[in-house]
């Protein structure tokens, strides 16, 4: 661990550093030698076709999947080597929006959102209730405190889950396919919410998606993964990449062309 501490001072300013990471399940290697950084207040999108390992990278960074090799530093803590206690500490500072929302079905929306608030703070009941309503109003769900997750629509569930991820005003937010299963209008609204949160709070965001519209709207930088390359094939501003890329795989992705 002493080595990691030495590194901490250098990398503490950069919220997320992925260094030469190999990820996979059991014997199957999905990604090899992946390296990139996410700077403070930046929105980075991880994109690529199905099965290229987008969600796997996310799982690695949030500590749900241990990498087979390499280091992943989140606020200077190596989540690949950290024990559960350290991971819990690091996780307190980030929020995750899962693909399905992952709201707890047996709790009302208010209970879902107050769960992290009650656990991590010493705020009194009234303030927690006020904050719950604030979080719901941020995602345009005010008035739905007492609804159960199965009483609201898919898009609303997604937004409620975002409100839960925002509960503690995390400095890093992770999104796994935020627009999956949403109509274009709801999806664009969610993009707007993401942008306004990023600007207002300088929240660092790492978003997994393959929606080109979202990528162009919200991404400061895009990390493009490829299944056969088992790694990154391009990193950069999406508008620039779309225009200047010479790699046919990158071109195809940005111009929605199916490859033979």
């Amino acid at each position: 661990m002493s080595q990691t501490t030495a590194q901490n001072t250098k990398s503490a300013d950069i919220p997320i550093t992925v260094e030469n990471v190999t990820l996979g399940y059991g014997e199957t290697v999905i990604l090899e030698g992946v390296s990139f950084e996410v700077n403070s207040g930046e929105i980075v999108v991880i994109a690529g076709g199905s099965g290229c390992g987008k969600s796997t990278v996310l799982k690695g960074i949030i500590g749900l999947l241990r990498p087979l090799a390499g280091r992943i530093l989140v606020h200077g803590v190596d989540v690949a080597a950290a024990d559960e206690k350290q991971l819990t500490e690091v996780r307190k500072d980030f929020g995750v929006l899962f693909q399905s929302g992952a709201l707890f079905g047996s709790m009302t929306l208010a209970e879902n959102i107050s769960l992290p608030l009650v656990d991590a703070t010493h705020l009194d009941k009234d303030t927690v209730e006020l904050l719950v309503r604030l979080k719901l109003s941020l995602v345009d769900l005010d008035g739905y405190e007492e609804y159960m997750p199965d009483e609201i629509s898919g898009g609303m569930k997604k937004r409620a889950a975002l409100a839960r991820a925002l509960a503690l005003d995390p400095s890093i937010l992770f999104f796994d396919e935020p627009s999956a299963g949403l109509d274009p209008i709801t999806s664009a609204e969610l993009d707007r919410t993401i942008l306004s949160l990023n600007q207002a709070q300088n929240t660092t965001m790492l978003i997994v998606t393959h929606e080109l519209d979202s990528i162009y709207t919200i991404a400061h930088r895009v990390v493009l993964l490829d299944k056969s390359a088992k790694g990154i094939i391009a990193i950069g501003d999406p508008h620039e990449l779309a225009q200047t890329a010479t790699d046919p795989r990158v071109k195809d992705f940005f111009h929605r062309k199916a490859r033979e």
Partner: protein
Amino acid sequence: MRNRRSKEHYEISLKGAPGSDQVLRLSGRLDLYATGHLLEQFKRVLKPKPPSSLSVDISGVKYLDSGGAMALKLLESQAAHQQVPFKLEGMTKQAQQMLQLIQPDKLAATPPPTSERRGNIIENLGAATRKLGGDLLDVIAFVGRIFLALVHVVRRPRSLRWRDVELYMERVGVDGLPIVALISFLLGLIMAFMSAIQLKNFGANVYVADLVALAMVRELGPIMTAVLVAGRSGSSFAAEIGTMVVNEEVDALTVMGFDPAVFLALPKIVATLLMMPLLILFADLMAILGGMIIGVLYLDLTVYTYVQHTMGALSVADITTGAFKGVVFAMLIAGIGCQRGFTVSGGAEGVGKVTTSAVVAAMFLIIVADSIFAIVQYYF
């Protein structure tokens, strides 16, 4: 990063006498953790005597998150409510954006939705009764569907998914055998031991064999096996089908033109029907073996005498009745397990509820069925 967790890293100062123009100066971190404290302090600014005007200077604020911004916005709307001129100064661009996100009018508590409102006791009683009646109807309808499906399978055996039947036969029978065998063996052992203490007094040692054989084959073998199968397999059927309902897999089957009851429930029911009598026979055998160990080691009986007495006590009818009970119990356990699975509503919690309900209902029905058997056997 850690100092982010610490509380109240902000400073607050109020200049000007109450009732006159006042300046509130804030600096440091106005974050979520400080929200409760901030709200308290702000209340005191406007009460008991509100200032003639209030200007809030946040130029010294280094960090402002949604919690802090909410407190400021609430102060602003409270001031407006009391008609105190309010001014917010020293905002950074970011703070401005944060404050713009907050809409104080949306923070009022809303009444719970109508579905949450609870009726009075008579309404609830009526609703519960209707639900019970509905459940009963569901069970009867399900039994009908399964019966028709069984008839269909007897006519056209190829319509059943036999590979699934094999799979569930393995899960119910082969995988369940060790625990059924162990429990029955110990049961036989305990029964023999407890009765031996009494029978020894009368020199009737040898009747231990009769007692163990009759009690086990007629009554306890089928019951114990049924309880174990209900716990192992009935619950897993309910959970499996319930999860499929939650994941819309059952809907997918329906729209593809399959009857979910036939596709999902029938293989499980047929497998349980086939394995249950076999498990019961094994249970009987193991219990007799357990009794024999006590008989031979503790009561000085020979293996030959013990086996002779066991065979003398039992008739073929006893064994077939036990096996037949097994068939009936299997139908109840697998049937209720599958039926409950289909009734899941909600998510993970719903699956848990139906699993419990499947096991409880199966045990209840097993005992009821066994009582009916006892009465029928007594008269015929």
